């Protein structure tokens, strides 16, 4: 120290320590306005991640020169993973690593230069998310057939939102539409688009989310390749339709969304059922109902007709005609048998009368017999009369009074035999 002081004095010169020199270099360079916030174009080489910190160290070079660069993790907003060979544009400030007086560019922004790198980045994220299964068909949600309310995340300016309204109102006017206004490009776009999806998932009644943007350059569509947006889409519980740019534009958002639509109008067509289709369907159903009804009525009518066409309904007299005949038959049989009965009885009576007639006294008298009475009493034996008795003789045609002159009792044969027997004894 002492030595130094004397030497300084002797030579009238300032002698720095290395540390002091390095400090001066650092201070001089870092204070230089020209080196604050420089934008540099170059190609990446010697790219190294520092795993624990997530910082990235690389060299930026052109044909003849190179400079060391560092990208601290907090600055890596684009999630671009720089790789050797990428042509990039970086923004940053020169810093000097004092211990070794090494100059390096501390990168605050890194942007791919030109389409090639953008495409590379797109492929990188795509590959990463694909590996995670975020594009798998199995995890895609089905769109509800009858949404009541559609949430749209897009810019309120421009034709996109109006196209969606127009298509929705034409197809199914009843459906409500809610817009979450979001920038669709620029520094706020990613945050706002993600928030839109999150908000729609938080509030009630949203059935489908459409995330949409009109056509634009690849740079303008860049946000739809954002990994954060892709992850937000993937975590939505509500089905999401993406409709970004033109039909030929494919973004990461398209791959991760549940349904990809080529244009915003097409997204609305996919989300909103067609009223006319349902009208026709309901008309068809109505026709089928009426037809089924008519068929049934015809069937029942036929049945009724069949029943009514039976002979008893057609000619009710048939029911009793048979009975009448039956009755007539029975009646005649009754009359006939009654007649026969009476006739038979009559015949029997006649024969009895004949028999009776044959036995009557007058008939006997007619045959020439005479009835003899005495004092009104019929005389049956000669023993009942005496000489001089007055007798009345009844003839068939009158009377005669007579006086008995003589009686003579005649022996009957039996008495004779008895007498004969007595005599023989």
């Amino acid at each position: 120290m002492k030595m130094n002081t004397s030497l300084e004095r002797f030579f009238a010169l300032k002698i720095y320590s290395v540390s002091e020199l390095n400090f001066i270099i650092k201070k001089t360079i870092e204070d230089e306005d020209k080196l604050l916030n420089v934008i540099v174009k170059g190609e990446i080489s010697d790219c190294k991640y520092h795993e624990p910190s997530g910082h990235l160290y690389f060299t930026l070079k052109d044909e003849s020169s190179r400079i060391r660069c560092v990208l601290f993790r907090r600055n890596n907003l684009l999630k671009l993973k720089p790789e050797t060979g990428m042509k990039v544009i970086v923004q940053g400030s020169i810093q000097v690593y004092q211990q070794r007086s090494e100059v390096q560019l501390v990168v605050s922004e890194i942007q791919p230069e030109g389409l090639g790198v953008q495409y590379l980045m797109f492929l990188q994220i795509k590959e990463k998310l694909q590996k995670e299964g975020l594009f798998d068909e199995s995890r895609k949600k089905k769109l509800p057939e009858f949404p009541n309310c559609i949430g749209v995340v897009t810019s309120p300016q421009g034709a996109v939102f109006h196209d969606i309204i127009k298509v929705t109102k034409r197809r199914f006017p009843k459906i409500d539409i809610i817009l979450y206004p979001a920038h669709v490009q620029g520094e706020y776009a990613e945050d706002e688009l993600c928030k839109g999806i999150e908000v729609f998932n938080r509030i009630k009644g949203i059935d489908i989310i459409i995330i949409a943007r009109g056509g634009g350059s690849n740079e303008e569509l860049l946000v739809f390749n954002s990994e954060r947006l892709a992850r937000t889409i993937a975590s939505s519980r509500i089905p999401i339709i993406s409709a970004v740019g033109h039909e030929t534009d494919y973004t990461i958002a398209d791959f991760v969304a549940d349904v990809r639509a080529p244009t915003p109008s097409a997204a609305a067509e996919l989300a909103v059922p067609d009223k006319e289709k349902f009208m026709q369907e309901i008309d068809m159903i109505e026709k089928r109902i009426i037809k089924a009804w008519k068929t049934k009525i015809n069937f029942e009518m036929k049945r009724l007709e069949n029943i009514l066409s039976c002979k008893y309904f057609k000619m009710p007299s048939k029911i009793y005609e048979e009975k009448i005949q039956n009755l007539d038959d029975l009646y005649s049989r009754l009359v006939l048998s009654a007649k026969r009965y009476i006739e038979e009885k009559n015949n029997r009576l006649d024969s009895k009368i004949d028999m009776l007639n044959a036995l009557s006294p007058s008939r006997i008298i007619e045959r020439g017999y005479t009835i003899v009475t005495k004092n009104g009493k019929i005389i049956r034996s000669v023993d009942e009369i005496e000489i001089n008795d007055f007798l009345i003789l009844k003839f068939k045609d009158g009377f005669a009074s007579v006086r008995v002159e003589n009686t003579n009792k005649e022996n009957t044969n039996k008495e004779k035999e008895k007498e004969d027997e007595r005599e023989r004894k």
Partner: protein
Amino acid sequence: MEKKDEKGKEDYSFEEALKRLEEIVEKLESGELSLQEMVTNFEEGMRLSRHCKKILNEVQGKVEKIIDENGIIKMEDFPC
């Protein structure tokens, strides 16, 4: 069960009404219903079809815009 259905008929969403309508037309076409059941189902079917058409012809739904003030959500009509 039947009564409950009866009560809520006008509150059916379009989707529910259309589903019920399809059930009814299939029942009617099956030819297995009695005449009385045909009458009941026919009437319900026609009522549902009117209900569906009414919904389809209903006037415009809302168009609204969300205003997100640091997570506080408000809605306002979107002029269109």
